[in-house]
């Protein structure tokens, strides 16, 4: 039974870990986009659409 629970635990940790990594990478990119948009607007000019 230990091996069975170990297998299921690893599977769920793998998927939860991947979901968390997606969320962290998305947040980091979102912050970078906000900063870059501010810099573009500060430098001047072309409004940036998503």
């Amino acid at each position, binding site marked *: 039974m230990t091996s*069975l629970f170990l297998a299921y635990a690893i599977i769920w940790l793998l998927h939860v870990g991947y979901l968390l990594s997606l969320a962290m990478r998305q947040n980091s990119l979102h912050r970078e*986009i906000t900063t870059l948009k501010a810099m573009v607007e500060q430098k001047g000019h072309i409004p940036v659409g*998503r």
Partner: protein
Amino acid sequence: MNSLRLEKSLALAAAAALVATMYGAFLYAPTESTMGDIQRIFYVHVPSAWTAFAAFFVVFVCSVAYLRTKNLKWDRVAVACAEIGTIFCTAVLITGPIWAKPVWGIWWTWDARLTSTLILWLMYLSYLLLRDFLEEPQRRATLAAVFGIFAFVDVPIVYFSIRLWRTQHPQPVLMGGEDSGLDPMMFQVLMLSWVAFSILFVLLAVLRVRLEKSRDEVQQLRRQLMLQ
């Protein structure tokens, strides 16, 4: 339906299906007579493999579509599915040995099924690493598409390996000939698990494609800043 609502609906559906799968795998499905409870790994091992195959098939289709159209949207879906397929393939390679040790007495053997699966995992890992070395988007997408088509050749080899060669890995329980077959309750849980993993795959793909779009936006903004 906007993308946020789609993501929430998929997340709820995936969570419900996965909880139902856990109930089915641990409480509903009967205990296998020869292997005992350890056989319940089957309900995550096999659907993980099927989902990895499906993800790699999407990579193949998107790679062909990219080479035909040169539209980067296909490349975004391809890289998303390659990464997710690699995660599911990792799950197969971890659960397999955990199942094998108590049943075969060994963690690993270099038979055709196990070796071809390891090669599959290494190829898609290489696909992801290759992309990191290339900066220019069109060149990266073209090389990745060629590699994505080439790597898919291993999927049918993995699938048919247990039919073509004598392996330590068991023969197929579904569509495997006269001696194959599965208890109806086990079959129901297997199908439920496959549906749950498929919904999880679609959810992860939607999230991963959104990430790739954000990356493209960052590149676009950086180029704009450099031009100003």
